[in-house]
């Protein structure tokens, strides 16, 4: 599974990185995106869902979020 570390990057870079990675994913592929802020969490989740993926977020112990994206 590919992991993208978008922590500390400002808007819209996390979305750009996630978007590119999702488009490169094959059917059934999984992607993990690490982000730091709620803004990035919401933006990346919205982008993933708009591209037809399922996506969910878990809080990490460091205070950020781990976003798990699956392309059906």
């Amino acid at each position: 599974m590919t992991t993208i570390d978008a922590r500390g990057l400002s808007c819209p870079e996390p979305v750009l990185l996630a978007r590119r990675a999702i488009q490169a994913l094959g059917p059934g592929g999984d992607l993990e995106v690490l982000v730091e802020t709620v803004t990035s969490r919401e933006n990346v989740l919205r982008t993933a869902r708009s591209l037809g993926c399922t996506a969910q977020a878990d809080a990490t112990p460091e205070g950020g979020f781990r976003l798990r994206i699956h392309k059906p």
Partner: protein
Amino acid sequence: MRERLTRFLASRRGIILVGAVIGLLGVLLRKFGNPPNMGICVACFERDIAGALGLHRAAPVQYLRPEIPAFVLGSLIAALAFREFRPRTGSAPIIRFFLGAFAMIGALVFLGCPWRALFRLAGGDLNAIVGIVGLAVGIAAGVAFLRAGYSLGRSSPARGAVGWITPGIMLGLVLLALIRPSFLFHSESGPGAMHAVIGISLAGGLLVGMLAQRTRFCTMGAVRDVILARDTHLLSGVLALLVAAFLLNLVFGFVKFGFSAQPVSHSNWVWNFLGMALSGLAYALAGGCPGRQLFLAGEGDGDAGVFVLGMLSGAAFAHNFGLAAKADAVVEGVVQTGGPSPNGQLAVVLGLVFCVVIGFAMREKWEAKR
């Protein structure tokens, strides 16, 4: 409860509701005394604050506008309440300072930031359309740089003082606005002399700050997200602002359609376009409109605080060096078209050159090659 509110405000209905509320608040602030079509203008208000502090001596635009510190403090309150206050810095602050300064110079050549462009349009000032087209072109250029790998780099978590310094300064400004010490400058006439009473300005500003922090309201992001990803989420909030402000302007009889001699506005198309193109590019490269930079500063983003200081400095330069545009004037019944001086025109060109150089120089691919 907190999570449900967060989900609602992150939804399409949430951003539309907040956009409409901000639109209504902007017109109400104008009704209560702020200048025409300037119920809320981040750039103009920061320029007025620079004047109040004596950083420039343009007598008509000096007033310590409480809305600006209230935006930051409203955002701070919301960020603390929802545990989103995160001190952070380190993403090219010196570049952000100059992006802020040039964004302000572009705004003062147009005579308003994107927020005021919307309020001007909602009041019938059709020059705002030219400005908004310029803004969109500037943002599109910023998107092209982002697609080519432009990045100001990562910020890092920082100690608390980094996050608290901008809200602390803003609290100091509120105290100065309340105490009104004699060293502050205060316009006797002109836009700086027109303002709502301080309590209303503070209350309106705090409400806008809280709502905007929760929804990530951003006038630049609205256009950028459409160009970048066909994402109309933020745009729907911005359009709601425009429609709500227009309707309330109609109720109050504030709408006057036209190009010439609109309030605190000029009808020089070329420089309305280029001024806002510079601003739009600078906001896109910095990752947020001038309002969003204030809300980010309230969340503890030290880099956004540096952008705000850049805007204050840009306002000082703009008036000390005669870069800001003159508004249209009616002299003996004849409209004299305003616009920027040659100094202002040169500053816009310099700003565009600066932004383009930064757009190329901060591409990660370039750095990787070295």
